[in-house]
């Protein structure tokens, strides 16, 4: 499909996501609802991957770029945090490392146990 049409299709899904959040009052962000809607559209084959492939690759390949403006917003809390700045940074980094390691290790063990059971069965 032509690129602009692909974009229009993706943006329509975002429109539905926003609609579900704002008008229907579903307590999930529009972005997440849009992801869910697109997932359901793909599963039911109403939308085919080929119909949005190039445009979705465009976004997926440079995902961090779109998160830069909210990131720069951390300048705004510089004044609010003041003395707590170092503690704040260290705590965020430390908690992330522990969460990532523990989540990954537990999932890894469970996946291997499950695969081993399937093999044995």
């Amino acid at each position, binding site marked *: 499909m032509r690129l602009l049409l692909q974009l229009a299709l993706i943006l329509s899904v975002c429109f539905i996501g926003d609609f579900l959040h704002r008008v229907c009052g579903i307590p999930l962000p529009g972005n997440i609802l849009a*992801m869910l809607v*697109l997932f359901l559209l793909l599963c039911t084959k109403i939308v085919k991957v080929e119909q*949005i492939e190039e445009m979705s690759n465009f*976004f997926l390949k440079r995902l961090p770029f779109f998160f830069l403006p909210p990131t720069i917003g951390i300048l705004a809390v510089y004044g609010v945090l003041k003395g707590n700045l170092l503690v704040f940074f260290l*705590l965020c980094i430390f908690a992330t490392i522990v*969460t990532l390691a523990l*989540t990954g290790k537990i999932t*890894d063990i469970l996946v291997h146990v499950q695969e081993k059971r399937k093999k044995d069965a």
Partner: protein
Amino acid sequence: MHDVLNTPFFGIVLTIVAYEIGVACSRKFKFAICNPMMIAAVLIIGFLMITGIELETYNLGGDYISIFLGPATAVLAVPLYKQLNQLKAHLFPILIGILVGCFTSFAVVSLSASLFHIDDVLHLSLLPKSITIPMGVELSKSIGGIPAITIASIVITGITGGVVAPIICKVCKIKHPVAQGIAVGTASHAVGTAKALEMGEVQGAMSSLAIGVTGVLTSIITPILLHWIA
């Protein structure tokens, strides 16, 4: 003099240039610390601080880029759909893993807060740090945190996740791509997911899934746990 910059094009061009420099650096130096997003953020923040240009001036352009966070998040459904088989095959470990992550994040933040005598508002603002920004802001408001601090903690968490993910997977011997993806998505939402997509399609898909599930679970269990420890 800053009137010259009162146009959206300033923020947009600055962001693109900083991002491309970040990408070029990360390709040239293959260290984990050379994360394109982190380099770009440091460049933009440094530039604004040195020149004294206001955040509002930058956001004239930045807001246009932020609009596309919607479609950029929505298309995460594509890798997830392509890896539907992995999801079906490993549903149980995936859900348990994400649940463990939600509790871990809560426990580490709360324990550190009481250990280092961090004040309550800062503690509450930090609790939603592993979930995606719109969900984190709502949770922060409902438990009595400051949304601006929550956003900052979410951003730092995301960048940290992207930088440390490959190192931690290696050190802790987290080998299965499903486990790697779930770890990154649960700990560091969509910003970390960008790194997971680089690690592989399975990792990217599982990380995308974890963003939504972690957001919902954290929003539910955080008020309950707070009530319980109070």
